[in-house]
């Protein structure tokens, strides 16, 4: 036993050493380890400044507060991980070190907060992960692995697995984050943190949770360029950070959160786009009568075949001439491969068409009030430009339609040509979300635990509602959403016995492709925390008002729903630790996940639930008495909190535990 655990220690520290090397090699900023947190935070900040977006600079205090909550959550997570790692690698050594670290953890948020407030940044990029990784490395290294290679094959295998996990972790380490200010339609703003893997869909989901809106499919993120007077909605699959990073530093561009009928109009009334006979009155009337079944089959026909059918669209539009304020009328045709026009004196047969533009490198925007700005013939304008272009330029194409209907047809047609089936997949995901949300709110208000059932029952239903021709991809993403919902549901169901469970839903995801369309774990957790119930908003405000002393609150899953499950988790570890430490040096946390967890009475659970501020202290106090576990008590919360994200350490622990099982 003891021997094997030593091996594991060795393995672990080798691994960490390697991670360290790797981190450096990857060009991640690594700071001298001794002083882990606060300085680094600052450093990262200043790095982030380069890319700061001044328009976002003017964050109000309360925004900052809200942000702090997010930030602190991340930081403390990192800390926790560090600590946990320490604990594992060198249980008996470095007591002081870990204590120190935990001190930092409380200090860090403060420093962070003040920094942020003083500077008034709204946006930063941070390499979060490095912090966790480095400290870990240094601490474990002391007991240097004498002979890592001498290990047996079995262990080599285990090691390989762990390396994989570590690598996953490292990948996450490179995640860039951005704080964005989103304008609501009531003229208020909300700031939220978006990491570079998040798609517009994820951000929307996040906003849904923060705003308690009805989650219908029309909600969208909307970007506005005041200077060019153009605007467009983000497609749900677009990467938000990527789009925003095209903005210049001094941009006046804004992101709005609002409802736009046009976003998915084509899926609600496909006949208006596919069966429109050049805007004849009668056809309009007849087409609007189309019944649901016909719509469905039309959609299936258009979007579920081997290739997507782009609506046939042609007609005369006005084109703004390069650099002039004059508009020329030309006959344009939309094809899957681009927009074409009929050159003078030619016919509109395919062979004569001249290519006007292809969609690969351009986005489509609505032009607002171009009649005024550019003397456009009408105000129904659309604009095609490379997303990186932010100023007036000859490379921006301005087109003008006769009426709103035509404008919508063109914009939608171009979106279909550009995005293809992705658009339909987005719509289905949005629908699934909307359906889920409506059910959720119906039942959800009754009790926090209620969502479990609706989520599960919705699952199969939304699944089957997909047409047969459905692309596997879409099915996958939808089911992923549902899976998530179910996971949550499950967590609810077996609150107490589910200690192990709580980890598992997270862990299997770890190996998944990092680019999965799912919201990256950490944000998810955060959002689900703050979401679940109406309680969130008041709470958030409280935090804002209360200043920075409360940060830790936030990283504890705060509102009613999560605590019940989190708390039971928190307690178990300590008791477990108390006994084992003497026996076997490394393992504690794993055992809590599996064996010990179920037997243990959830010790100090429910009371702290409602009061976030008090939530934090109790566990700490409760656990402190037992001497040895003392430093585990801090680690423990991360285990709980980390359940939502795939915590590398917990994975490791699992591996360790498994191993221990083998040996004994």
């Amino acid at each position, binding site marked *: 036993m003891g021997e094997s655990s030593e091996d594991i220690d060795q393995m672990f520290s080798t691994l960490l050493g390697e991670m360290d090397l*790797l981190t450096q090699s990857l060009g991640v900023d690594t700071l001298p380890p001794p002083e882990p947190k606060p300085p680094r935070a600052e450093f990262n900040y200043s790095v982030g400044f380069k890319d700061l977006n001044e328009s976002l600079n003017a964050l109000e205090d309360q925004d900052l507060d809200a942000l702090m909550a997010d930030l602190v959550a991340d930081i403390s997570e990192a800390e926790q991980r560090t600590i946990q790692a320490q604990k594992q690698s060198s249980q008996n050594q470095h007591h002081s070190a870990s204590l120190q670290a935990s001190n930092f953890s409380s200090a860090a948020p403060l420093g962070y907060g003040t920094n942020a407030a003083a500077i008034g940044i709204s946006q930063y990029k941070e390499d979060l992960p490095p912090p966790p990784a480095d400290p870990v490395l240094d601490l474990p290294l002391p007991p240097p692995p004498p002979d890592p290679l001498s290990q047996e094959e079995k262990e080599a295998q285990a090691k390989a697995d762990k390396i994989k996990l570590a690598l996953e972790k490292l990948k996450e380490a490179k995640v860039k984050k951005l704080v964005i200010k989103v304008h609501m339609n009531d003229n208020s703003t909300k700031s939220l943190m978006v990491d570079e893997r998040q798609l517009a869909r994820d951000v929307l989901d996040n906003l849904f949770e923060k705003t308690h809106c009805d989650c219908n499919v029309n909600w969208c993120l909307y970007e506005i360029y005041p200077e060019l007077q153009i605007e467009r909605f983000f497609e749900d699959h677009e990467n938000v950070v990527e789009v925003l990073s095209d903005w210049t530093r001094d941009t006046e561009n804004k992101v709005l959160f609002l409802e736009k009928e046009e976003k998915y109009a084509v899926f609600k009334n496909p006949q208006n786009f596919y069966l429109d006979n050049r805007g004849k009155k009668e056809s309009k009337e007849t087409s609007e009568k189309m019944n649901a079944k016909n719509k469905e089959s039309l959609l299936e026909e258009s979007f579920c075949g081997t290739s997507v059918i782009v609506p046939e669209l042609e007609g005369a539009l006005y084109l703004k001439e390069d650099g002039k304020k004059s508009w020329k009328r030309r006959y344009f045709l939309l094809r899957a491969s681009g927009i074409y026009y009929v050159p003078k004196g030619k016919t509109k047969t395919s062979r004569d068409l001249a290519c006007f533009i292809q969609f690969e490198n351009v986005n489509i925007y609505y032009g607002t009030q171009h009649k005024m700005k550019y003397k456009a013939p009408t105000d129904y304008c659309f604009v095609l430009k490379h997303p990186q272009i*932010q100023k007036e330029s000859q490379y921006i194409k301005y087109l003008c339609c006769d009426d709103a209907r035509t404008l919508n047809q063109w914009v939608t047609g171009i979106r279909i040509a550009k995005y293809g089936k992705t658009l339909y997949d987005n719509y289905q995901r949005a629908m699934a979300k909307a359906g889920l949300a409506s059910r959720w709110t119906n039942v959800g208000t009754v009790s926090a635990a209620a969502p479990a059932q609706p989520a599960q029952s919705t699952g199969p239903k939304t699944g089957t509602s997909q047409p*047969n021709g459905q692309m596997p991809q879409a099915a996958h993403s939808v089911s992923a959403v549902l899976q998530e919902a179910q996971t949550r549901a499950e967590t609810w169901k077996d609150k107490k016995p589910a200690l192990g469970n709580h980890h598992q839903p997270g862990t299997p995801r770890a190996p998944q492709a990092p680019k999965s369309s799912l919201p990256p774990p950490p944000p998810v957790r955060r959002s689900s925390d703050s979401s679940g119930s109406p309680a969130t908003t008041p709470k958030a405000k409280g935090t804002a008002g209360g200043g920075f002393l409360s940060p830790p609150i936030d990283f504890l899953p705060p509102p009613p729903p999560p605590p019940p499950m989190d708390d039971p988790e928190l307690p178990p570890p300590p008791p477990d630790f108390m006994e084992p430490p003497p026996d076997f040096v490394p393992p504690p946390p794993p055992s809590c996940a599996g064996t010990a967890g179920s037997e243990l009475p959830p010790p100090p659970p429910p009371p702290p639930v409602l009061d976030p501020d008090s939530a934090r202290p109790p566990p700490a106090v409760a656990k402190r008495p037992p001497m040895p576990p003392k430093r585990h008590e801090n680690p423990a919360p991360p285990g709980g909190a980390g359940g939502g994200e795939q915590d590398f350490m917990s994975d490791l622990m699992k591996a360790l535990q498994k191993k221990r099982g083998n040996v004994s």
Partner: protein
Amino acid sequence: MAGMKTASGDYIDSSWELRVFVGEEDPEAESVTLRVTGESHVGGVLLKIVEKINRKQDWSDHAIWWEQKRQWLLQTHWTLDKYGILADARLFFGPQHRPVILRLPNRRALRLRASFSQPLFQAVAAICRLLSIRHPEELSLLRAPEKKEKKKKEKELEEEVYDLSKVVLAGGVAPALFRGMPAHFSDSAQTEACYHMLSRPQPPPDPLLLQRLPRPSSLSDKTQLHSRWLDSSRCLMQQGVKAGDVLWLRFKYYSFFDLDPKTDPVRLTQLYEQARWDLLLEEIDCTEEEMMVFAALQYHISKLSQSGEVGEPAGTDPGLDDLDAALSNLEVKLEGSAPTDVLDSLTTIPELKDHLRIFRIPQRPRKLTLKGYRQHWVVFKETTLSYYKNQDEAPGDPIQQLNLKGCEVVPDVNVSGQKFCIKLLVPSPEGMSEIYLRCQDEQQYAHWMAGCRLASKGRTMADSSYTSEVQAILAFLSLQRTGGGGPGNHPQGPDASTEGLNPYGLVAPRFQRKFKAKQLTPRILEAHQNVAQLSLAEAQLRFIQAWQSLPDFGISYVMVRFKGSRKDEILGIANNRLIRIDLAVGDVVKTWRFSNMRQWNVNWDIRQVAIEFDEHINVAFSCVSASCRIVHEYIGGYIFLSTRERARGEELDEDLFLQLTGGHEAF
């Protein structure tokens, strides 16, 4: 029984003599004479014939064909009376399966035995099973066009006819896979070659041939093809097809169900070939930009198919970015050697530094800025290109720095003129910067070009695909050197795998007339960079998708005359709609969707099709270029295809099909 005689030799029963010729419809065939009565069963007659012939042979496939009635006597329990056969009937006792030569969608010829006695629908299903093409309902047979014998004689190439006529399929079950192909193909080297022909795309055709082949010049030319479809509900024999005839096998209905690259290699390939030939022979029109994409895909496909990389994605995994690559590298290496070496190599992201001549076009075109190319010291690192006045100033501030992420990279190359330029359109907040990099030679060009391309996609030269990208560019340049001289210019390059890129073989003849080969090649190269990472099946699928995205895709044209109209018009039949098209101008006059269709009727006497749509819209027309049976079958066929569901798999409701497409025998 039959044939009781009196002593004098007269027959006293009601029996009579029936003469049956043995063999296929050949007047000089041997014949046997039987004595039968009206009550004789066909089965009994068959037995007697075989006895009479008295030859050891497998007769199981033989049946009696009644020439005058153009009918097979397949109901063995029916009596002659029931069939109405009298002594004057000309009957032939011959095989039901006879060899035909199929002209496949890829234009290769294949001899096989097809059923001459089953309705064509079943015969095609059997053929498709043999060729392992799923969903045979989408295909049918056409008569070969009549040849203009005189001209063709001069250069009738002795083409290889693949032979599958000896292959027999076990009935019923789907053929099992053996050595990566259906088991019945793996019998001999010959059949194996045949499978390769079926499942792998053919090399691009000779441009000369392409120019010689007939192409439709108008809509009415496009209607010609559709007059040749055979009737699905009748057998080949009834339609006057003879053993050894040439028939075309084509996808008839443009509604391809459940196309799956994994299970459908033959189907996918043949579909690709049909699409390709459609485009090359201008059966379907596309724009110049679209043609370049099609050409690039064809080039890519033929390259992959020739190099034998059939299964897996070509070379590298496109999703592997530098970090991933580094990590997985590490993962492997950590197991063995000392990690430091690896890490060393990981830390350095390769960069390019060199003297290049640069020509920058200012954003606002000012006059007198044509300074031409200037020598600069250029450093290309990660995705950023910086240039300096000279090498000494390199550590300082560059003249300009461009992040190539999201930029457009356009080759501007003329190999014979030794011009190797890269045109970059780099987006910036203010607009696009246009800049030309001029390289000295192919090697330099290939490296910088590959770097630019990766950078435009946000990847660095550490990316795993960098080397293969460089190789691809070099290969393409060498093609330009050997190939693109012009039509009929045979490449002398020793490199077999890249042999014969003649851009003229990849585009429709009208583009051959419009562009010189050296103009085409760079454009194809440009389009190729977007598809270079696709696997064979993916590329074929992409080709088919692009084909399906053409506005005119899947429309079969028939010349008709609408009731009440005095001129001929074109009726276009697509998988979801009927289109009335002006014959002269080609404009769409009116579209009716099948989903609004109530019923359709055919008046076989006056050859008129009448269709009723929702809201009492009635349309009637008579068919001019093809028989109304063909129009009827097209409409019924599409409606049948729309009833297919994934759940049912490949099961076919043949009765429904025949009900929807047949029905004219009654008249």
